């Protein structure tokens, strides 16, 4: 089946629209790969728990008394009721509201009412635990599969995205904050991951916000929120040649990052204003001049960890794609506080996410519209194949197995489908 969906540098439209393909993705990709479930700062103390998702399943991330993490299916071992219904909290035990079966934070059964009436109460099971849970520098990942690549190997060349985010915190710690923004579209999950590193679309899809910002030059001199918004909108207005100069770097496993393209004002990678100077100084105190300079010199925009994560280390933001059906996707957007950095930096982070990733964003709303148009269009079988050859002549394979390409290349699409194919076939 899978071999019939990829042909050279084209993919069959069924990869986006066919529910049978989506079901196979659930089985072969989402029940096997490492998926992000949360950040350790969300469950800092013993007894803390967080309701989250692992693929299609709702799971509970708990901090045990011994300091370790467990990830449990939120389904009572008795009649199947959801045990936890609060999004987060702290507790000594998890207790089902239906018949009061109670569980330790590692999911093991403490007891059931009327245990004497069972012939074999000792054999009753606890909450099912997810077989693999592992943390990379505070980012917690899990896999439904008992075996598979180690987390560090899976993240591969894009571990650097998390490293850079951590390295940017003068106190060496980051904390999830600010709640989340959630986007929804009637389209396939892969569209989001492809579009996040498609550097030709901004010139067309985001033209309305570019032109609107150009019509209001005074906005660039406005208050800090207005300045940031105007600068972010205007940045999407680069010419094709300038987008070409933004590097795309693809790593084994389907991961890709794109270089930064914010050049001016409060969104520039390095600034000279007093807030940034205070921040730089704090960073130098932690790392020393040389390393601090190297950390700040990492200028990337979206870091995509296939299949479902996009990290923007510079702005402390992360998007997690949640595939719900072949034609239905939710994206959760979260952000992190760089501990030890000036408060103003965190305001910049919140504003960045509000402006770039809200469903009401002048930028993201046009992306969502395009995803839905693609999904509707692909239902039409007039042309079965979707071409992905743009820029193929600019791909340059590196000694470490990664591939670098000009910004306008469709390298990320080809690369993501290569990873998709290897997981889907096996």
């Amino acid at each position, binding site marked *: 089946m899978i071999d019939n969906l990829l042909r050279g540098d084209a993919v069959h439209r069924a990869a986006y629209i066919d529910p049978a393909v989506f079901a196979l993705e659930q089985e072969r990709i989402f029940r096997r790969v490492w998926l992000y479930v949360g950040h350790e700062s969300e469950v800092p103390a013993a007894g803390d728990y967080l309701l989250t998702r692992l693929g299609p399943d709702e799971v509970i991330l708990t901090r045990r008394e011994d300091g370790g993490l467990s990830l449990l299916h939120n389904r009572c071992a008795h009649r199947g009721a959801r045990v936890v219904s609060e999004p987060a909290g702290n507790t000594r035990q998890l207790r089902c509201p239906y018949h009061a079966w109670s569980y330790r934070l590692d999911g093991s059964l403490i007891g059931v009412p009327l245990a004497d009436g069972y012939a074999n109460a000792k054999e009753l099971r606890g909450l099912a635990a997810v077989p693999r849970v592992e943390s990379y520098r505070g980012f917690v990942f899990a896999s439904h599969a008992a075996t598979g690549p180690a987390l560090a190997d899976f993240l591969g060349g894009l571990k650097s995205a998390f490293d850079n985010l951590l390295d940017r915190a003068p106190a060496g710690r980051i904390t999830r*904050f*600010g*709640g*989340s*923004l*959630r*986007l*929804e*579209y*009637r389209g396939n999950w892969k569209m989001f991951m492809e579009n996040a590193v498609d550097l030709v679309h901004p010139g067309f*899809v985001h*033209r*309305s*916000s570019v*032109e*609107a*910002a150009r*019509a*209001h030059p*005074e*906005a660039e001199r*406005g*208050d800090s*929120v*207005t300045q940031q*918004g*105007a600068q972010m*909108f205007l940045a999407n207005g680069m010419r094709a040649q300038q987008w070409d100069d933004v590097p795309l770097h693809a790593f084994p496993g389907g991961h890709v990052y794109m270089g930064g393209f914010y050049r001016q004002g409060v969104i520039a990678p390095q600034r000279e204003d007093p807030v940034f100077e205070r921040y730089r100084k704090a960073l130098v105190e932690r790392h020393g001049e040389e390393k601090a300079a190297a950390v700040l010199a990492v200028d990337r925009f979206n870091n995509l960890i296939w299949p479902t994560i996009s990290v923007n280390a510079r702005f402390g933001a992360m998007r997690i794609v949640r595939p719900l059906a072949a034609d239905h996707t*939710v*994206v959760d*957007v979260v*952000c992190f506080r760089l501990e030890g950095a000036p*408060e103003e930096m*965190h*305001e910049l982070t*919140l*504003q960045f*996410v*509000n402006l770039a990733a*809200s*469903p*009401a964003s*002048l930028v*993201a*709303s*046009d992306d*969502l*519209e*395009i995803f*839905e*148009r693609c999904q509707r269009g692909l239902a039409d079988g007039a042309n079965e194949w979707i071409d992905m050859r743009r820029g193929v002549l600019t791909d340059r394979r590196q000694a470490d197995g990664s591939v670098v390409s000009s910004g306008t290349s469709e390298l990320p699409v080809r690369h993501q489908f290569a990873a998709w194919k290897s997981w889907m076939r096996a």
Partner: protein
Amino acid sequence: MTDVEALVLREARLLDERRFGEWLELFADDAVYWIPTKPDQASPHEALSIIYEPKSLLAVRVERLQRGEMHVQTPPSRTVHHVSAIEISDLEARSALIVAEWRNGESRWFAGRVLHRLKRGPGGLQIVLKRVDLTDGEAPHRAIAVPL
């Protein structure tokens, strides 16, 4: 009807009539339009916001709505902002809002509580803050183009 109530109703109607330029003019120069994600959110620095825009940035949003090349408004939405249960205390108005939106063959609804904070200037009554607390600010939303 008081002039405060009249302003709240006119503000909603201008959105439904897509008279976005005139809608923007109802806001004072130092006004803010805010849709927080969390109920009881005290500040935009505490949590993410669906929209947090000073008037100067709201002007860019309105500019975009008035231009033709905005994909997410091609075709445009039709909306009804249903404002009710208005309570007025001096220069503050609290109301209940339901927005029905039809676009591209589909209908959807938003519901929330609205706070209008107003001031009297030389040109009359102006909005200083419009805050919309959605019932489901933390839920996933499809693209939102017409202000609520």
